[in-house]
């Protein structure tokens, strides 16, 4: 326990406790438990279910995990440095590539931070378009997550393909609106890049109307499946205190019963105007994390319906914003949104030049991985894979 002065410095709570040095020993060879019965395997960076080039150094006793160390950086490209040497606008397409499933929410978080920095106002129609695209993004992200989770459980791709089938329709919408399916690069500081093509909103409505049918199908297939329940219930339980202390955000946080959804808390964009509920779990296990996503999708559909009913005509870009020669005044801003994976924040420091002086991304995927080892210890190799899948990481964002 590190020493810290001061009278009020209490003994840290259970969750916040610094873990003993043993918890940070690296390999089987390093520790005193190694009597030859432990097996150290390196899962990744080439492994089918690490969701990219992620590596876990796992020490096993039989098949029980006794130590697990995540290893990062295989996809590191120093996005922050690249953005600091380019103009504010030029960083926007790079944000697409952070969490490449959710480029539109990434755009939004960055745009929000810059708008805070430069004091830009977003026109109403643009705000509606942002809500619509963000909720569509949430749908397709959660759908894929559920599919990948089942894939990690060995479901030979069927749920994944159903998820991808629906995602395909949403990506078609993105393509019609933004010109690209995944790397949308749609939002601009103070609005959006272009208005909707004719008939686009009707297409969105069609997809939204069809979606519940798909969700019912998906739940028929899986949510009451005995194997799924046996594989996920009671597995990887995250306690409430640990989740808060470790900065876990998004559905993973809410699965342990913490009511913290930035759409409600910060009320950014137009979210205070919409009626939706925040589902909460009570167990914090893999099943709850999975169900959070399913329930959130239903709420997202509600938001989409309300937004489609109420979207007004109007401009889509703040007239004060400019594409060329954008130089915010010196200052700093931290903008954060509820991305599908958790709190995505952008912290910008401007020194008055066309390039950001400091450009920092708060990646939900990386920080949610803080508790990976805590969740996995004592479980099986097979559970490690599902726990990782239920945390929902994208390596583009973890390694940046």
């Amino acid at each position, binding site marked *: 326990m590190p020493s810290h002065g001061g009278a009020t410095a209490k003994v840290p709570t259970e969750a916040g406790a610094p873990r003993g040095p043993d918890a940070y020993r690296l390999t089987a060879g390093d520790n005193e438990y190694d009597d030859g019965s432990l097996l150290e395997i390196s899962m990744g960076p080439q492994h089918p279910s690490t969701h990219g080039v992620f590596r876990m150094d796992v020490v096993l006793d039989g098949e029980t995990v006794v130590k697990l160390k995540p290893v990062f*950086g295989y996809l590191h490209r120093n996005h922050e440095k690249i953005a600091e040497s380019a103009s504010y606008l030029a960083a926007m397409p790079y944000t697409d590539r952070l969490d490449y499933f959710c480029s539109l929410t990434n755009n939004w978080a960055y745009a929000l931070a810059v708008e805070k920095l430069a004091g830009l106002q977003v026109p109403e129609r643009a705000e509606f378009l942002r809500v619509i695209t963000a909720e569509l993004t949430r749908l397709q992200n959660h759908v894929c997550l559920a599919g990948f989770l089942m894939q990690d459980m060995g479901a030979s791709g069927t749920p994944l393909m159903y998820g991808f089938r629906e995602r395909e329709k949403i990506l078609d919408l993105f393509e019609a609106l933004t010109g690209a399916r995944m790397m949308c690069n749609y939002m601009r500081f103070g609005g959006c890049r272009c208005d909707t093509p004719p008939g686009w909103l009707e297409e969105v409505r069609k997809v939204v109307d069809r979606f519940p049918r798909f969700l019912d199908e998906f*739940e028929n297939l899986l949510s009451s499946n005995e194997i799924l329940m046996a594989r996920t219930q009671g597995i990887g339980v995250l306690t409430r205190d640990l989740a808060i202390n470790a900065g876990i955000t998004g559905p993973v946080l809410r699965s342990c019963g913490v009511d913290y959804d930035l759409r409600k808390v910060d009320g950014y964009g137009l979210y205070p105007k919409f009626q939706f509920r925040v589902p909460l779990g009570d167990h914090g296990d893999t099943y709850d994390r999975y169900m959070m996503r399913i329930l959130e999708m239903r709420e997202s559909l509600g938001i989409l319906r309300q937004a489609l009913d109420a979207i007004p005509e109007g401009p889509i870009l703040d007239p004060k914003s400019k594409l060329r020669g954008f130089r915010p005044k010196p200052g700093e801003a931290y903008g954060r949104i509820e991305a599908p994976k958790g709190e995505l924040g952008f*912290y910008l420091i401007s020194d008055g030049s066309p390039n950001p002086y400091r450009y920092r991304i708060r990646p939900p995927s990386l920080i949610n991985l803080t508790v990976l080892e805590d969740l996995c210890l004592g479980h099986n190799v097979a559970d490690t894979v599902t726990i990782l899948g239920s945390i929902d990481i994208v390596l583009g964002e973890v390694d940046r």
Partner: protein
Amino acid sequence: MAATGDSAAGHRLNLDPNEFGTTSESSASVETLEQILPRMKVAIPGVTFEVVPNSAPGAEPSWLVDREHALSAAFFLRDDSTLRLDYCSNVTGVDWPERTIKVKVRKGEPGAEKEVEETRVVPGYLEVVYHLYSMAAKHGPVVLRVRTPGRGNDVSLPSLTPVWRSCELQEREVYDLFGVHFENHPDLRRLLMWEGFKDHPMRKDYVPPDDYEYEPTPHDEILEKAQARLARREASS
């Protein structure tokens, strides 16, 4: 199945035109530093707190705390019953290299002062910024800054991982990319760069090496550098 009904279908958006167009910022406000400081002075004797202003329109000021008392201040902020900043959202480093600024100073005899431009050297330092929120009270952010004395050898700061586990990976990242040494961090290893990497790439004076794997493209200075390097290597061997 639980909650399969589509609840939001019935709701319709309140279409009051006056309500639109106002972006609501985080509503719950945190106490100002003036309100907190007396309590804190009692709790942590000798702590110095300073407000760093922020001229951006959002105007979130940040609090600079001295590094000796940073850990106790962090515990105070987390455990104080009104603040309850139980959630550390973001940890980041900022590199402020040594810079010369020109200041206008009045000089000369009193009465016959002249405005003279002087160059002054501001010593460089590394800064770590913590964005704190409260999940319990749903307020925030409180921006906490800690600075190192310099950028050279004295780059250690207390780790706040004992207070917030969320700092664990982020402080590792700051260590990796900025070279801030966090004392008492349980696992201070490089996060993104590989072990054995020498420099800290996010520092402003970082010079990228010319021998990393390149994609040979036309009109590429990296290619030229790499080719020059190859030529040198061939010449020497």
